[in-house]
C-alpha cells in the first residue's frame, strides 16, 4: 500500500522523505539545480544585474478556493513581491510544513499547482525543504517561498523614490482574493461568484519598464489591502498621499459581501493587484500600458502624492469629503451588530 496520508516519518529525513522528494516534488519542479540534490542551488547571475530577495509564508484556509489554491498563491505572492522591486522573478525556494494526516493527494494537487504557477511566472523552484508536524500543530500545509529576481534597470524602485506630485495608478478592481477566501470561512460562509484575483504582476511591470515609464514605486495589495499598502508607502516615503474613493473599482459581489459583513474593501487582500507611482506626466501612458498587461479590472489613476503630512493618506469620499485612511489594528472582524 502507498501512503495515503502524510505521516511524521515523511519528515524524518529517511526513506519516506526521499520518496516524497522523488515522487511528489521532483517530477513537478524538475530543473538542473534541484536535480543536483545538494544542500542548496548554485546559480549564475549575469554581470551588472542586481538582485531582489523576498519571502512570504502562506497559511491560507481553505487550501483550495475559487481562482486558486495555496500552491498558486505561494508562487504568485513571491514573484509579485519581486516584481514590486522591479525585478524579473527568476528562482524560488519552497519550504513546506505539512501536518501529519494531510492526504497525499492534497499535497500532490498543491505541488502541481505550484509547478503550473511557476511555469506561468517563468520562475524555477530550485531548492526546497519539507517538515512534518504533529497533528494539531499545523493546518494541512503551510508553504514558505523565498524568491530571487533580477533587477536589470539601473533605477531604484521603492518608497524612497516616491516624489510629491507622483501619480498613483491602481492596476484593477480590489477585494477579490480576501472575499473569495472569506466566502468559505466557517461561520461566515456564503455562496459567491467571487474568484480570487491571484495572478503574476511581472508582465505588467515589465511593460511599464520597457515602455519607458519612470516607475518610482510599486506595491502589491496583499494582506491589509489597498489602504495598508498606501499607508506603508506614505510612511516609508515620508510623504502624503491623496486618493479618490470614487475612482477605486470594486465589483458588485465584493461590495455585496462587504456590506453584508460590515467590512471595508479598502482593507481586503488582493493577490494580483498593485499600485504604481510615477511622474504625473507619465500617468496616462502608464495606464494604457497597464490596461494591456495587468491582470484584472479597470486601470485607473486614483490619486497623487501630496505635500501633506508624512505618512498620511487622505481619501476623498464619494461625497467629496476628505478623511484620513488609517491602518487597522489587525484583521477586519465582521461588523454585524
Amino acid at each position, binding site marked *: 500500500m502507498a501512503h495515503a496520508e502524510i505521516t511524521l516519518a515523511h519528515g524524518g529525513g529517511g526513506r519516506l522523505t526521499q520518496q516524497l522528494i522523488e515522487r511528489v516534488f521532483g517530477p513537478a519542479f524538475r530543473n538542473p539545480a534541484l536535480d543536483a540534490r545538494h544542500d542548496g542551488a548554485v546559480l549564475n547571475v549575469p554581470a551588472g544585474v542586481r538582485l531582489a530577495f523576498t519571502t512570504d509564508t502562506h497559511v491560507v484556509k481553505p487550501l483550495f478556493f475559487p481562482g486558486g489554491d495555496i500552491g498558486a498563491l505561494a508562487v504568485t505572492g513571491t514573484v509579485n513581491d519581486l516584481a514590486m522591486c522591479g525585478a524579473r522573478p527568476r528562482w524560488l525556494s519552497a519550504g513546506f510544513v505539512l501536518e501529519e494526516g494531510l492526504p497525499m493527494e492534497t499535497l500532490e494537487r498543491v505541488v502541481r499547482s505550484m509547478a503550473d504557477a511557476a511555469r506561468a511566472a517563468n520562475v524555477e523552484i530550485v531548492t526546497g525543504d519539507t517538515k512534518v508536524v504533529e497533528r494539531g500543530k499545523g493546518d494541512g500545509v503551510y508553504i514558505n517561498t523565498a524568491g530571487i529576481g533580477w533587477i536589470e534597470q539601473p533605477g531604484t524602485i521603492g518608497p524612497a523614490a516616491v516624489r510629491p506630485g507622483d501619480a498613483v495608478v491602481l492596476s484593477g478592481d480590489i477585494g477579490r482574493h480576501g472575499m473569495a477566501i472569506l466566502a468559505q470561512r466557517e461561520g461566515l460562509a456564503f455562496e*459567491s461568484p467571487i474568484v480570487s484575483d491571484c495572478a503574476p504582476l511581472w508582465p505588467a511591470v515589465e511593460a511599464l519598464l520597457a515602455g519607458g515609464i519612470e516607475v518610482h514605486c510599486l506595491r502589491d495589495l496583499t494582506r491589509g489591502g489597498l489602504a495598508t499598502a498606501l499607508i506603508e508607502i506614505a510612511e516609508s516615503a515620508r510623504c502624503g498621499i491623496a486618493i479618490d474613493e470614487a475612482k477605486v473599482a470594486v465589483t458588485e459581489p465584493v461590495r455585496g*459581501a462587504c456590506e453584508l459583513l460590515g467590512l471595508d474593501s479598502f482593507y481586503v487582500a488582493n493577490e494580483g493587484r498593485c499600485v504604481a507611482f510615477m511622474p504625473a506626466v507619465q500617468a496616462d501612458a502608464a495606464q494604457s500600458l497597464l490596461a494591456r498587461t495587468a491582470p484584472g479590472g479597470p486601470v485607473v489613476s486614483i490619486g497623487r502624492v501630496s505635500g501633506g503630512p508624512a505618512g498620511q493618506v487622505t481619501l476623498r469620499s464619494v461625497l467629496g469629503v476628505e478623511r484620513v485612511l488609517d491602518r487597522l489594528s489587525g484583521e477586519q472582524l465582521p461588523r454585524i451588530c
Partner: protein
Amino acid sequence: MCLAVPGRILAISGADFFRTARVDFGGIVKEVNLACVPEARLDDYVLVHVGVALSVIDEREAAEVFSYLKQMEELAELAPPPPVDSSPPATPPS
C-alpha cells in the same frame, strides 16, 4: 448598531421559525430566515440583519426622497436664492 442590508429573494423554503430564503446581495447569496416577514415573496427585497429578514422594502417609499429632491429643484428654479445664513457654505473641503 444593527447593520442591515437589502437583498433580493431568490427562493423560499421551510415554514414557521424555519422559513428560509436564499437572498442575493449584489451577487453573493446567503440563507436568510424569513419567519418575521411572512408577506415576503420571490423577488422582493428584504432588509436583513444577522441572518433574519426584518422588513420588505417598499419600492414606492424608497423613491420618496428623490421625488422630494426633484420637487425642491423645481422650486429652486422658480424661486429666488435663499437668504445667506451665518453658517459656512456646505461644500466639502477640497
